[in-house]
């Protein structure tokens, strides 16, 4: 009998602590699947952020280090420059990456660090109980925007991926929405592209994932998907934001990252 679906090799057998309908578990699983498919797990160092995903190392069966809030890209820089032939993944949320870590993100991208950032955008601070995030959209209710986000009071949602895409050191940025089976499949493809971008020594790569947070959105998982598809994608449309890869998808296999890139 052919096995169609099983437990990924590099996912530990611990039950996820994430809320029902949360996107973290989907992306955690996809990363584990890809590292197995691409035979990269043994040379991967991942970075867990402050936030719900800080416990990623309870699930990922490959090396993982915690970073202080917002500093994922800086920690990734330190690791990658010391170990240029490894795959370095910084897993970060919207507040982590687009508020407290804006500087680290932009400058790592601008240096063209050969690292991959997985950016989980759920439009709020999930772990602390649903406060306004930089990516909270206008009129969205959060615990710190009880009347809805108001541009005059709180500013506009930050399109950090678009900002970073302007920088020449960036090789690949794609935004995906894991609010449909199709979207989940394209998320895995996008993350694979990003890993290849890094392994091929092309430059900085970032995948923004529009990810449901049913608990803090006060919606059912099904309604959360619907809200992403009906509302959130209007503010943050999925698609490839920048692709400066030389090798595109044709030559995706096998080539190792050069030592001492730059």
């Amino acid at each position, binding site marked *: 009998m052919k096995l169609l679906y099983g437990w990924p090799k590099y996912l530990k057998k611990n039950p996820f602590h994430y809320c029902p309908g949360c996107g973290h578990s989907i992306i955690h699983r996809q990363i584990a699947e890809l590292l197995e498919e691409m035979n990269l797990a043994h040379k991967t160092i991942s970075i867990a952020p402050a936030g719900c995903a800080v416990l990623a190392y309870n699930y990922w069966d490959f090396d993982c280090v*915690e970073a202080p809030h917002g500093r994922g890209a800086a920690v990734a820089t330190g690791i990658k420059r010391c170990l240029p032939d490894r795959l370095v993944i910084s897993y970060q949320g919207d507040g982590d990456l687009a508020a407290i870590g804006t500087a680290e993100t932009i400058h790592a991208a601008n240096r063209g660090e050969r690292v991959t950032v997985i950016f989980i955008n759920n439009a709020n601070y999930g772990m602390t109980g649903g406060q306004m995030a930089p990516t909270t959209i206008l009129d969205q209710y959060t615990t710190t925007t009880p009347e809805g986000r108001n541009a005059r009071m709180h500013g506009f949602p930050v399109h950090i991926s678009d900002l970073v895409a302007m920088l020449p050191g960036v090789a690949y940025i794609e935004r995906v929405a894991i609010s449909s089976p199709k979207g989940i499949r394209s998320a895995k493809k996008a993350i694979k592209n990003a890993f290849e971008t890094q392994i091929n020594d092309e430059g900085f790569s970032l995948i923004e994932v529009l990810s449901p947070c049913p608990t803090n959105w006060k919606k059912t998982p099904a309604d959360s998907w619907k809200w992403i598809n009906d509302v959130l994608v209007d503010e943050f449309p999925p698609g490839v934001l920048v692709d400066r890869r030389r090798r595109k998808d044709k030559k995706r296999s096998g080539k190792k990252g050069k030592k001492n890139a730059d």
Partner: protein
Amino acid sequence: MTKQLMRGNHVVAEAAIRAGCRCYFGYPITPQNELGEYMAENLPKIKGAVYIQAESELAAINMILGASVTGARAMTSSSSPGISLKQEGISFLAGQELPAVIVNMTRGGPGLGNIAPSQADYFQATRGGGHGDYRTLVLAPSSAQEIADLTFDAFDLADKYRNPVILLGDGLLGQMMEPVEFREPVKDLPSKEWTLRGADGRPSRFSRSLILNPTLMEEHNWKLHRKYQLITKQETRVEESGTEDAELVMVAYGVAARIARGAMKRARREGFRVGLIRPITLWPFPSDIIRNTANRIKHFLVFEMNTGQMIEDVKLAVGDNTKVHSYGRPGGSVPTPMELERVIARLYYHTIQKESSS
């Protein structure tokens, strides 16, 4: 190896490279810019070595965290306001038990302060500095030669105890030129069993400071505490001079100890029996030696280039029968030995001689 004339900031950089430091991340701030510039020029000449001018002190210290977790010997440097920014990362390094060397060429403060030499950051350096219940080793050189030697030792101590080490200088030590002789470059670096370099042929590992279970967090804190006790027992360093026959013992470190030594010589020529205790490690603090000295000598003078910070550690060490006097010049003012000698003389005539005659 012959002696070379070098400025303190360059000495740190050269000694670090010789000690096997292959990663330097920093952000410009006076009075320590020559250190980063030396690294920018010399590190890229070494295969596999990394120099990055970071976008901020926060980024620099977190690049250190990343480099350290791979097992590399990594260093960052700054001066007071920049060191405040680094405290976040230093706390994480301490919590995750990662080695790192952090250089502070202290300047006047608080706030932006000035760029003149100061010892205003004693509390910050010796009390951990960031959040949480932790300590960093603090080495306080007082000459270019000692900068070279202690920089070597800083890397060894950081690796040995898996703990951040602060090299606490000041603007004067960083800028002044003195002859210095370097040790030979380190060939074999210590092997590290705990690094994250990819789980190739071994189970995966992680490095964290988040421990949600209070019982386990408490155990982690006690484990760190036991390490700090061991460091206190094994690594306390101090230099004593003239304490055998002294009636008054000065306590001073770093550049202030140089001034104190000059004042001591002058005072002894005048017939004042003055000694000097110079802590070389500020944490761990040489409390035992000061306590033993206080059994014989009833007057201490703590001289610092601040309004009085180390005096708290001296007072904790000496007990109630000893009088601890303080003389400080904050804000980047550097007193002369003559000035300090006058302080000694006043103390002698007004207090010590009166006590011994009554």
